[in-house]
C-alpha cells in the first residue's frame, strides 16, 4: 500500500479519465483544442470531479508550465473579496507564459461568497478578462448571482453512478493490494453519498485497519465523527448542564468545529434511528425545530458558544419534562 492520500494519488490527470461527466469533458476538450476558453462555472454535488476537471483542463492547456499559469483560490479560505482582489491583481499583472495567451484562476466554493462580494468579483472578472480566465466552482449554482452566471459558460456535473464509483474503488483497492468485500464496497457507497472523495478516504482509512468489509467501514465512520455530540446531548437531557457545556467546549475548541457543524451533527444524532438517546418521536421533532431556531440565532448573533449553551439549557428543561414528568 502506498502512503500518500489516495484521493490525490488517484486523482485523474487527464480530462478523459474523469468519470461520468461525458458531456462536460467533451466540451472542455473542445476548448483545449481551440486553445481558448471563456469564463467557466462548474456546478454540481461535492465529490463529482469539479476541481479535478479544472485541474485537468489546466494540465492539458498549459502542459508542464501549468503551475506558472494557474492560480488556485478557495473562497471560504480567503478573507473577503479584498484579499481575492489583491491576489488576482498581483497574479494577473504578469503575462501568461507559453502559447496560451491567458492565465487560469480557479475559484473554489464560489457560492460561499456573499452577493456583495460576488458583485465585486464580477467587476474583477471584467477587469482582467484580457489576461485571465476564471473557473468558478460551486455546489449550488443558484447562489451565484445572475450577472456572473451570464458571463460564464455553465457546466453541470452529474451525480456519479454507483457502479462507476464502486468500479473505481475496486481498481484502487487492487492497485494498493487491499482486500475488499462486496458488502464493504456497498457500505462505502452508502456512507459516502455519491461523494468520490469521501468514498476514497473511507476506503483508505478502512484499509489502514486491515480487510475492508462492511464492519470495518462502519467502524471507520463511527471513529471519524466525534462521539462527544451524543454524550453532550445525553448529559443535557439528563439535566447535567455543566458537564454538557464542558463537552460543548471540547467540541468547539479541541475539534475546531463551528457552531453550525455542531448543530448539524446534533440534528443527525437526534433524528438517527440508531441513536442511543431513545427520544420519543414528538420530542425529536421539537428538538429538530429548536435546533433550527438556534442555528438561525447563530447566524444573527455573534457568539456560537452562548447560543449553543442556550440550546443545552432548553434541552435540560425538556429532559426534565421527559424523564421526571
Amino acid at each position: 500500500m502506498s502512503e500518500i492520500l489516495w484521493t490525490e494519488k488517484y486523482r485523474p490527470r487527464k480530462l478523459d479519465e474523469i468519470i461520468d461527466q461525458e458531456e462536460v469533458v467533451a466540451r472542455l476538450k473542445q476548448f483545449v483544442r481551440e486553445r481558448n476558453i471563456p469564463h467557466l462555472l462548474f456546478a454540481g454535488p461535492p465529490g463529482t470531479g469539479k476541481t479535478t476537471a479544472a485541474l485537468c483542463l489546466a494540465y492539458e492547456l498549459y502542459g508542464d508550465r501549468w503551475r506558472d499559469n494557474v492560480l488556485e483560490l478557495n473562497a471560504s479560505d480567503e478573507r473577503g473579496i479584498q484579499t481575492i482582489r489583491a491576489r488576482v491583481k498581483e497574479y494577473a499583472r504578469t503575462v501568461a507564459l507559453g502559447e496560451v495567451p491567458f492565465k487560469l484562476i480557479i475559484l473554489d466554493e464560489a457560492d460561499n461568497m456573499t452577493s456583495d462580494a460576488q458583485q465585486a468579483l464580477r467587476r474583477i472578472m471584467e477587469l482582467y478578462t484580457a489576461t485571465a480566465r476564471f473557473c468558478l466552482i460551486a455546489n449550488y449554482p443558484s447562489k451565484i448571482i445572475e450577472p456572473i452566471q451570464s458571463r460564464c459558460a455553465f457546466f453541470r456535473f452529474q451525480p456519479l453512478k454507483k457502479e462507476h464509483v464502486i468500479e473505481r474503488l475496486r481498481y484502487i483497492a487492487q492497485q494498493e493490494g487491499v482486500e475488499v468485500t462486496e458488502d464493504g464496497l456497498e457500505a462505502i457507497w452508502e456512507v459516502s453519498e455519491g461523494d468520490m472523495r469521501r468514498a476514497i478516504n473511507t476506503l483508505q482509512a478502512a484499509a489502514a485497519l486491515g480487510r475492508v468489509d462492511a464492519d470495518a467501514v462502519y467502524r471507520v465512520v463511527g471513529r471519524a465523527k466525534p462521539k462527544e455530540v451524543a454524550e453532550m446531548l445525553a448529559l443535557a437531557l439528563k439535566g447535567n448542564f455543566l458537564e454538557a457545556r464542558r463537552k460543548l467546549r471540547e467540541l468547539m475548541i479541541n475539534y475546531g468545529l463551528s457552531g453550525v457543524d455542531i448543530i448539524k451533527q446534533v440534528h443527525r444524532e437526534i433524528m438517527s434511528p440508531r441513536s442511543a438517546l431513545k427520544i420519543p418521536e414528538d420530542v425529536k421533532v421539537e428538538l429538530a425545530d429548536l435546533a433550527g431556531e438556534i442555528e438561525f440565532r447563530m447566524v444573527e448573533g455573534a457568539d456560537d458558544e452562548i447560543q449553543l449553551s442556550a440550546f443545552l439549557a432548553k434541552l435540560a428543561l425538556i429532559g426534565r419534562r421527559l424523564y421526571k414528568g
Partner: protein
Amino acid sequence: MSARASLRLPWVEKYRPRRLADMVGNASAIREIVAWLKSWEKGIPEKRALLIYGPPGVGKTTLVHVLAREFGYELIEMNASDLRRAEDIRRIARAADIGSLFGSRGRIIFFDEVDGMSGTEDRGGLAEIMEVIKETRIPIILAANDPWDPRFRPLRDLCKMVRMDRPRPSDIVKLLRRICLAEGIKADPAALRVIAENAEGDIRSAINDLEAIAEGRKVITVDDVRHLAKRNRQHDAFATLKMLFSARRCDQAKAILSQSLLDYDMLLQWIHENLPYQYKDPEELAKAYEALSKADMYFGRIVKTQNWGLLSYALEMMTAGVAMARKRPYRFVKYQFPQRILLMAKTKEVRRLREEICRRIASKCHVSRKCANAEVLPFLRVIFEGNPKMAAGIAKWLDLSEDMIRFIVGDRRKAKEIVKYMRK
C-alpha cells in the same frame, strides 16, 4: 541630574531599579536571562535572541536596562514610539554593526514592545527583525506582553523565551516601604498592602498610586487609600456578578453597567460562565440563557449593521434579562473566572497546530481548510491510530512535524512509532 529635575521626576522613574539587586520578584527568570547573556562571552549561543514576555509593569524594560548597565553593554533600543518598518530595523542593525566579528562587542539591540508593531505602519518590520536575528553576532533582546499571536510563531522559534510573572503583593509592599522611607513618609503597612493588592502585580501602577496618594502628605493611613480607584478586574467581577444576580428590579441589574470596570464583552463572558452556578433550577437557567441568547443576537446585529443604537437592548437583555430569570431567593455562590478564556489561552498551541495541519492538507488536496478539517482530518485520525506505517508515509507527504503527528493520533507513544517509520 540636577536636584530640581530629580525632584520633579515621577517616582516610577526616580526609583526605577539601577542594579539587579533592586529588581522585585522574578528571581529565577532573571537568573535564566543572566545566564543567557553571560553565555555570549563564550561565543554565539544557539538562540541568538531572547524574548522576555509577561504582563505590563513587571519590569521587563527595566530589567534590560539594568542588565546593560551591570554588564557594561551599550543598549540600542527601539520601541513602539519609533517607526519600525523594514528599513528602520535594518538601519538600527547597521548602526549596531551586528555582523562585525570584533568591533561590535559590548552592544545589545533591544526591541521593546514587539507586540505593539503596527500591521500597516510598520510593514515588513517583523520579518526584518527575524532576518537580523539570523545574522547577528551580538545579543538581541525582545520584550512583549503577548507573544502568542500567530504572526509571532516563526519569531518564537528563533528566540529563547523567558516569562516574567507578576510579583507577589508582599514583594511590592517591601518596595513601597523602601520608597516611603526614602521620601520620609510614614505609611501604615495595611495601607501599603491595599495599594499592593490593588495593583495586581503591576509594580509601576503600585508606585504611581502611592505617589498620587502621597502627594502633599507625610502620613498615609488606610483611610487615605479608601478612594483608590480600582484597576482590579477580578474582584470587580465578583462584586458585579453578585449585584447582578441579586437584583430584583431591572434598573438595579442595569446599574452594574456603569459601576463595573469590565468591558461588555468580558462581562458577557463572566455572566455566561456563571449562569449554571447561580441558576440550578432548569427553568431559571433556560430563561436566563434565553435572555443571553437574545443579547448575543443584538450584538451580532450591531456588528453586521454597525448600528450602535441597538447596544442598549443588548446590554439590557444581558443584565436585566438575566437577572429577571430568577424566581427563587438569591443565594451566594463562588463565581468562576470565564473558563473559556483560560481554555482558549491553554489551547492556543493546539488550535494553531490544527490550523497548520489543515493548511497543509488544503494545499495538497485542493480543498478549503474548513473542508480539510471536516472531511479529511477525521480519516487521517483513523489511519494514524490504526496504521503507523501508512501514517508515516502520509505524514512525510504532508510534511507534518512531530507535534502535528502527536496532535493527530493524540498519543505520544503512537506518535513516536510513526516518527520511527518516517526515519526509515
